[in-house]
């Protein structure tokens, strides 16, 4: 399956971005990594050009609240992204935050999977479960 990933935010998080990239590849996904400082529109555009099944956005500086509200409006301008699995991971607020409020909030913003301060492997396991349950019609055997 194809994954578009990247970080909304600045350079020092390039390590996390690269680790996500490597982990996804290790699990057999085809990865299109847009790197750090990526804008929302670039993410969606990349999904269109690559035919990605999954969009995994990292936000590590606690500022995701600021741009997440735009997701639904922006996504609605695209005609082919309805089946796109949307996942967000990282530090979604400044400080620890309460998962009971954070997860539903980001789900309302349009994310299928919300991983606030969850370890990378656990998060990717969640993704795999989600895909299996969804019985995605585009699912292919891992490379």
């Amino acid at each position: 399956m194809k994954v578009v990933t990247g970080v909304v935010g600045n350079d020092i998080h390039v390590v996390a971005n690269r680790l996500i990239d490597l982990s996804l590849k290790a699990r057999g996904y085809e990865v299109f990594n847009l790197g750090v400082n990526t804008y929302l529109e670039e993410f969606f555009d990349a999904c269109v050009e690559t035919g990605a099944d999954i969009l995994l956005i990292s936000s590590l500086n606690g500022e995701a609240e600021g741009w997440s509200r735009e997701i639904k409006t922006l996504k609605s301008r695209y005609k082919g992204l309805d089946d796109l699995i949307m996942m967000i991971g990282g530090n979604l607020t400044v400080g620890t935050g309460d998962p009971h409020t954070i997860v539903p909030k980001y789900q309302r913003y349009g994310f299928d999977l919300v991983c606030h301060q969850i370890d990378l492997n656990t998060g990717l396991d969640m993704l795999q479960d989600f895909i299996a349950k969804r019985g995605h019609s585009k699912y292919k055997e891992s490379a």
Partner: protein
Amino acid sequence: MSLLQEERKIILGNEYVETFDFAEVENFVKNANKELFISYHYAKRAKMLVQPRGGFPTYKKQFALNEFFVNANVDVLPLTIDSNTRLNDYGTAAKMLRLSEENDVDMLNGYPLVNHGYRTTRKMVTHFNKPVSLRHGTPDARLLIEQAIASGIFDIEGGPVTYVLPYSKNFPLDKAFLYWKYVERVCASYSKLNEPINRESFGPLTATLVPPSITIVIQLLEMLLSLEEGVKSFSVSFAQQGSVMQDIVTGHVLKKLAKQYAEKINCADARINLVYHQWMGAFPTNQKYAEQLISLATVVASIVGADKIITKTKQEAAGIPTKEANAETVANTQYLLRILNGLPSIHDEQEEEMLILQVNAIMEAVFNDPADTLWRKVFNSIKNGTIDVPFSPHIINHNELITVRDSRKNIRIIKRGNVPIPNKCFEYEKSQCDLNKDTTSIVDDIIHDIGIMQ
């Protein structure tokens, strides 16, 4: 007037800069006290020079920091430049400086040299009469370096590759090469007047599992790009990597090859120095452990035979250190250096041989690039993945080279991408690692390998 001189006039005509008196600056450099020149101290080779890091926005605070350092017996004073200046945003730097001065709070993470100007800064530099090293991370450092040299700062760190690939996502690398050529020429020009201006490459790069061959290749190339313009004193550098033996091997090979490659371009008269950075990765939060890590780095620097050591502080994990903590490391390091006597000379012939083979193979591939200037060969090599820096955020970087640590914490290449290390070396690297694990475990290993000092 030469083209370079015309360009200099325009660069120095910037609206944020006070009038630049070329003749006066030349005169100043010509008559400057030898003590201000790090190249002079390097040439004496009396001891390993100790240099901390640090920069505050206001003149007052920077002065106070320097006082602390001098009282702690520092050999080289740092001047770390703020991030706005690094991005040539002198307007914001000016605003933040004013706010910092008015409210006695630090609105900048370094010293805005361009806004302070060279006349002011020179007062501080000449007052302390110690060599000052310029630390920054600036792709276009033309104006900054002019101000620095005019201030009496005669150690200039950075380069087109080492100051772009680790920090920037998309600054056009070819432009960076041009801008750093300007810097080299200006430094070379001033070097004719007195002791040479020293240039220092930034070896740590991303400081995240960078294999020694990549570090050394980039050091050598930035050195050559500098020497070919007439720079006469150059420091190659690298950061503590996590394995004592690997550091020793890296140090030996870097020194040896730097000399060889300098000779190849008829620059044997340039003095090449070796600089060692204390651990540049994630630091332990426990400050006592942090102190141990720092001491270890100092010991390794001594065995490696570094000419200068750049220190960290025990507060590294917490953020910007206090001047007290900073000065404390300087004092501790000086003490440790004083008592480190009778160090044995240690070699690992096989590791050195393998590393030399790797470096020479990559250098040869770079030189074989069809471009007719060295900088464009390097640019093309980065673009086609011949040179690949792990964890660089830059869009031009290939990101196909993968490294892990072996059981003795040496950094090993397990996927080489387009980097042309000889098969024999590649097999050797892989043979040192346990690659029978599944790939998810290898990724877990990488995560641990990055944080080995925590």
